């Protein structure tokens, strides 16, 4: 297991290198001269050239990239081209907010979505099933940022129950978490329902009944544990989507995570911030997927790690 974990972490390295290089490449070949954009409009050609030299923009892209990665490994993600701050120290302030948000939202999506799916399947074709299915469909069809705005409108602006923006206390997390969890919660509930209904009709569940088990034991001990296996495999993807959603929805709540400053960096083509963001997010998503796979191997005896 340890060996497998190490191997997976090592495998993460080429993926991170690959995605950052890809992004670095497309950002660098795209039109627009960052040096000119950083300087005042009346800057002379000589000053621009000097700036280009300072930023290392005259070197081949591969050299630029290698220099960037060399610095990054030493913990130096460069400084923002337009705002002047150190990218890493800015990340160290902002990342915990985004991560907390995404983690809580994922937990909420799992802890509410799965029971909802079970209840829906057990009451198959009855009122609770229809209600849960209806809300799942609705949640999975609504854009996260729009849901966020609607919650904000209702619970902050109209009812005044929860703060509309910021992250000063726990109350500020409620609305962002609820809006981010929605999509994955709906997905988990629908998937649990589908698989549970499928497995309830399987041969081994019939065997469990033929032994004289109570129906509740049949469902929770025999069917549910098997039905959750495919749901677990989707947690990594769900988490990744929630991080993505967070990058967008943070803008709704003026939430001080990485999302709110990434979108402005994207507009101004602030390469250090964008690439830094990619590095950080790809590592986080990679580690989450690893944790999910390890968890899966613990739950499903058929999975042999390293194969």
């Amino acid at each position, binding site marked *: 297991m340890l060996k497998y974990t190490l191997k997976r972490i090592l495998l993460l390295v080429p993926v991170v290198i690959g995605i950052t290089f890809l992004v670095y490449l497309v950002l660098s070949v795209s039109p627009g001269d960052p040096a000119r954009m950083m300087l005042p409009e009346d800057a002379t050609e000589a000053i621009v050239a000097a700036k280009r030299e300072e930023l290392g923009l005259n070197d081949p892209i591969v050299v630029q990239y290698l220099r960037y990665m060399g610095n990054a490994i030493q913990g130096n993600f460069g400084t923002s081209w337009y705002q002047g701050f150190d990218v890493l120290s800015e990340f160290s302030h902002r990342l915990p907010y985004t991560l907390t948000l995404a983690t809580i939202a994922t937990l909420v999506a799992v802890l509410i979505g799965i029971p909802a799916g079970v209840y829906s399947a057990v009451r198959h074709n009855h009122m609770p099933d229809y209600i849960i299915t209806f809300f799942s469909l609705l949640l999975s069809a609504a854009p996260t940022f729009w849901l966020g705005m609607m919650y904000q409108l209702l619970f902050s602006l109209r009812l005044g129950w929860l703060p509309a923006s910021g992250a000063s206390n726990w109350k500020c997390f409620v609305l962002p978490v609820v809006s981010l969890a929605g999509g994955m919660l709906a997905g988990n509930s629908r998937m649990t329902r589908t698989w549970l209904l499928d497995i309830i009709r399987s041969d081994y569940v019939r*065997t469990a009944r033929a032994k004289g088990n109570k129906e509740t034991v049949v469902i929770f001990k025999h069917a549910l544990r098997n039905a959750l296996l495919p749901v677990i495999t989707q947690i990594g993807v769900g988490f990744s989507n929630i991080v993505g959603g967070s990058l967008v929805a943070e803008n709704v709540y003026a939430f001080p995570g990485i999302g709110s400053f990434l979108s402005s960096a994207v507009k101004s083509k602030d390469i250090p911030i964008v690439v830094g963001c990619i590095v950080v997010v790809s590592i986080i998503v990679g580690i989450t997927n690893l944790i999910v796979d390890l968890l899966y191997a613990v739950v499903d005896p058929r999975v042999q790690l390293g194969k």
Partner: protein
Amino acid sequence: MEKLLEIKDLYVNYNTDESVVHALNGFSLDIYKGETLGLVGETGAGKTTMCLSVLRLLPEQVGEIVSGEIKYRDLDILKASNDQMRELRGAEVSMIFQDPMTSLNPIMTVGDQIKEVLDLHYPKMDEREKGKRVDDILSLVGIMPERKDQYPHQFSGGMKQRVVIAMALVSEPKLMLADEPTTALDVTIQAQILALMKELKVKFDSAMVLVTHDLGIVAKFCDSVAVTYAGAIEESGTIEQVFTRKENHPYTTGLFHCIPDLTSKAPRLTPIPGYMPDPRSLPKGCKFADRCTKCKDKCREMEPHMHEVEPGHFIKCWFSSEGSEEK
């Protein structure tokens, strides 16, 4: 002899979106203590449906027992409470399912799956005793007890079937319903498994219904035989009565012609022409009429009743000896 199970005039339907499938149509059968009964018939004749009906395990919302009676000893199965049924399942009556590949829970160790039966039906037994019982039954079916902590995917098909049998036998049931227990297995393993089941049956003094489509297996392992066709019994009797071929239902005769016989000089096998009637729309008279060589007008109009051609030997045909006398 004590009558263990009595099925009387059972009708079972499967209701699907498109149509109603008549799986059992007046199925009657008696099973006595210690007896091994071979239930023979083509695919779709209702053999599995009968086993599932006895345990009331027909698929929910789809399978429906329309009418009839099933009695296990004094218990009326169709009127029993869910608790009574649970006490019966796995303890008094256990079922061995057809496909060992899918009949075991993939994420429970085989030991735990066998022990679960004891947990359910012997709640007072202490853990060590249960462990010993699991070890014993595993050795009986020819699996090393050390393998009880392994998962189903670590076993081969034949081994899995042994686990399924161990699971069905660990509570020493009075009646075993073995639904084609060897169909999914290699021929060489088939014989081993069946011999094992016969041995265990004798050891625990239980009765067994062996569902199969192989008359050879019936001749070798059973005391009596019942031939099913389109959801009803066409002929039943002891092995001797049916296999001497003195008098048989035309369908049974047809089945015999399908077995290769090394002693006879017949150049080739004669298959029964045609197919079983569509269970969604059954014909009015004798269900076998369309494929029968002896078919007359009467057969298409009225369904024949059971005729006792000799004590204990029943044939459902207008042209059976007792039946023709009546005419």
